[in-house]
């Protein structure tokens, strides 16, 4: 499976390199404006850096969905489906390579952010701890209250939504290629509409599930469990369709 992941990453290498270059350039810009004591520009550059990361992660999801679409509808798919791997393994490899890409993006961002903040603090203040400085910076720029637990919770939720977005798109892609190609071709607008509709319905389900009263506890896992079940259902559904119905 590792080799599959390797090739999935290789396919999307170009966009990752571009993203990395842009982020490094922004960091260099930050260094420059910090040196020039242009505080507003410094905050703006950091905001743009953050925005770049968000765009990169969003784009990764779109790219994965696009490549998957190509794999199941064009001859390029032969590369994936001639090799002796089952659909579940192939899908899992795609998912894992997707997560790896998100990790690379966020770690790079984290590293560059740490670099920027350190340089800023060194230039403008005396030896405050890094975290104090970081929180101060974030609170100033984004005007929000930071607590570690909330941060981690937010990250996990974002990751889950991201995984859902990718899994749902691969599922719908497979459905339209296998079950509907004989009856009527879905136009792009219909596809996008169905996608957002299903996404919305799943989130509604999440709210319903979360409102079920459970005994008092610090940590309410029911939302996570629901999302995981949905993700697995979509995953296995996609794999089953690929195995039984997919013809390239």
């Amino acid at each position, binding site marked *: 499976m590792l080799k599959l992941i390797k*090739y999935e990453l290789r396919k999307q290498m170009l966009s990752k390199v571009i993203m990395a270059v842009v982020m490094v350039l922004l960091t260099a810009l930050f260094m420059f404006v910090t040196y020039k004591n242009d505080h507003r520009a410094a905050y703006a550059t950091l905001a743009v850096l953050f925005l770049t990361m968000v765009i990169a992660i969003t784009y990764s999801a779109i790219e994965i969905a696009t490549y998957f679409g190509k794999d199941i509808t064009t001859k390029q798919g032969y*590369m994936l489906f001639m090799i002796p791997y089952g659909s579940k393994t192939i899908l899992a490899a795609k998912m894992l390579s997707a997560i790896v890409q998100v990790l690379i993006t966020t770690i790079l961002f984290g590293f560059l952010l740490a670099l920027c903040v350190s340089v800023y603090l060194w230039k403008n203040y005396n030896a405050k701890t890094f975290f104090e400085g970081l929180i101060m910076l974030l609170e100033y720029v984004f005007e929000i209250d930071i607590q570690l637990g909330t941060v981690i919770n937010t990250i996990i939720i974002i990751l889950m939504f991201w995984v859902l977005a990718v899994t749902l798109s691969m599922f719908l892609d497979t459905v339209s290629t296998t079950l509907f190609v*004989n009856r009527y071709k879905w136009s792009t607008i219909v596809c996008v509409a169905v996608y957002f509709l299903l996404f919305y319905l799943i989130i509604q389900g999440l709210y319903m599930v979360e409102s079920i009263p459970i005994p008092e506890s610090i940590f309410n896992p029911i939302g996570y469990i629901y999302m995981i079940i949905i993700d697995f259902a979509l995953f296995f559904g996609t794999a089953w369709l690929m195995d039984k119905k997919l*013809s*390239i």
Partner: protein
Amino acid sequence: MLECKNLRKTYFRKTAVDNISLELEEGKIYALLGPNGSGKTTFMKMVAGLVKPTQGTISYKNQQIGVNSKKEVAYMSTEPYFYNYMTVEDVGKYYADFFEDFDMSAYRELVDEMELDMQTRVNKLSTGMMAKVKLAATLARKAKLYLLDEPLNGIDLLTREKIVTAILKAAGEDCTIVISSHLVEELESFIDGAIFIKNGCNVMVGDAEEMREIQGKSIVDMYKEIYA
């Protein structure tokens, strides 16, 4: 080693394969013959696992087509399919990564024979060169069942000789080769059997030498009879 019963594949408006039932034996070389659109490619793709049958069964060594059969079945399609960023060498590495029976040094030899450069990007190859790379990659595998779809198409005469030589070198008692082609005359001298497909059905399966001995007819003669 390969058995198909009442194989059928329909698409929205057309029937690509109507009814194919046949049995292939180990160690033989078969020609898959028939005009364009008769279902040869669809048949091969079903055996390769790329197309799922609408009806009927295929079994490879008494197993369903799947992960295990893909380990031993090598399919060479007519269309190009490599990833755009790859070089000729990358194609070899890909095959080496996923197929245990792939022999990298055999691949290098074949690429050399066909006068290709390992460092060329695949999206810079002409149709003829692409065909050679596909062939080299497929034949460098020590597969048990080779499915070659029109391997001689668009290839110049001298290279065709090299390709036939490569095929004959790959042939043996433990593998089966199915070659689909229009160029019946080129295949005539070395095939064991011929599978004639007409309108998605297999009209007949003939043993080449038997047809000569008993009926005094060559494959070319049979072809003209069946499709006239």
